[in-house]
């Protein structure tokens, strides 16, 4: 199994003129990219703007991407440069989130208060998060362990198989079933009003 084959297959399609494949790459990496950019700017809305600019820059630069490095590494590099340039152009200094556990809560409140532009977005984000967490809690133990090891710890299927003492095929099946169970609950939330909320956000 070659790492990054998934991204590379999408990248090759974009390079051949298929814009729809780029949507899939944006969907996959948008949250990670915004999180990365938020190391440089505090405001989530501004971070989203910078991430959007980074994605557009990446799209325009894709003809030069040869696959020497992983796509996400290349994309992250573009995002970091875009964020740094944005900070410099607005005459700000980068903000390093070097917080210890004791003031994590106070930071959380500050961050929420600053996100005054999109209060609906915060509420809906919390709703999504609580729905996912509730769905995970309702999963059977083996499915929960598999999806958490994958998403939270970032382990490969092979590593999860070793940790859970089961074949790789079983891991794949457990992760899929876990996602399906969570997705069913999530779809209800999206169809129940988040679609409209997205337009507002």
């Amino acid at each position: 199994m070659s790492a990054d084959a998934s991204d590379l297959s999408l990248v090759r399609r974009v390079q051949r003129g298929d814009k729809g494949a780029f949507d899939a790459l944006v969907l996959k990496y948008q949250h990670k990219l915004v999180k990365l950019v938020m190391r440089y700017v505090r405001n989530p809305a501004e971070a989203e703007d910078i991430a959007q600019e980074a994605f557009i820059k990446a799209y325009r630069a894709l003809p030069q991407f040869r696959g020497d490095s992983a796509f996400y590494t290349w994309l992250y590099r573009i995002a970091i440069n875009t964020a740094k340039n944005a900070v410099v152009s607005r005459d700000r200094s980068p903000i390093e989130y070097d917080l210890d556990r004791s003031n994590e809560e106070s930071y959380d409140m500050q961050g929420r208060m600053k996100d005054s532009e999109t209060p609906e977005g915060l509420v809906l984000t919390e709703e999504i998060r609580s729905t996912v967490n509730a769905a995970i809690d309702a999963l059977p133990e083996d499915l929960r362990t598999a999806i958490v090891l994958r998403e939270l710890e970032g382990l490969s299927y092979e590593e999860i198989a070793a940790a859970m003492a089961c074949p790789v095929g079983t891991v794949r099946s457990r992760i899929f079933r876990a996602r399906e169970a969570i997705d069913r609950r999530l779809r209800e939330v999206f169809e129940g009003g988040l679609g409209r909320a997205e337009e507002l956000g």
Partner: protein
Amino acid sequence: MNEELDSQLSAMFDDELAPEQCELLARRLSRDEQLKARWGRYAVIGAAIRSERGVRLNAPLAGRVSAVLLAEPALVTTPGARPTAVRWWQPLAGAAVAAGVAVGCVLWLRAQNPLAGAPLSAHLTAATVSVPSAPVVPAAAESYVVPRTPAVRAMVPSTELANYVVAHSVYSSPVARRNLLSAFMTSESGTAAEEPPDEPAVHAQ
């Protein structure tokens, strides 16, 4: 929705699908909006599990990027972006350049020392002919001091040594003979250099 297809989508999301299956699924994913929405929700699930602070899980970022790119022309990969293939003539060209340099070096060395490549008989003939009174200036000389008259004597091995070399040539290899002759010419040159010049030296250009 086909369960096997969804299972493949989940594995592809985790980069755990075989490349050939990725190719097929990527094609479908780029066209099927329902599949793309599911793919997007997989990303939301991951972000929610990781509790990425400050990240809006319902942000319409993908839609905004897609709207901007709608006005962009579709990409066409430039030839320069493709991996460069090794052309069949490149190794031959390298060998030709190397051979050219080698031939150039040989010719240059010959021009610098025309007697070095000459056969031994030429040396011996030069040793026995009468020495001309006019100064002999090698054609390849660039810049050095040339005595006007008798210094040429130093360039010609004496008859005595020439006879010695001829007498022993049967027992020595051509390389050894050449070395011996060179050594003698060097010693003769050294002797000549110690002698005071008969006339003021001139610079040959």
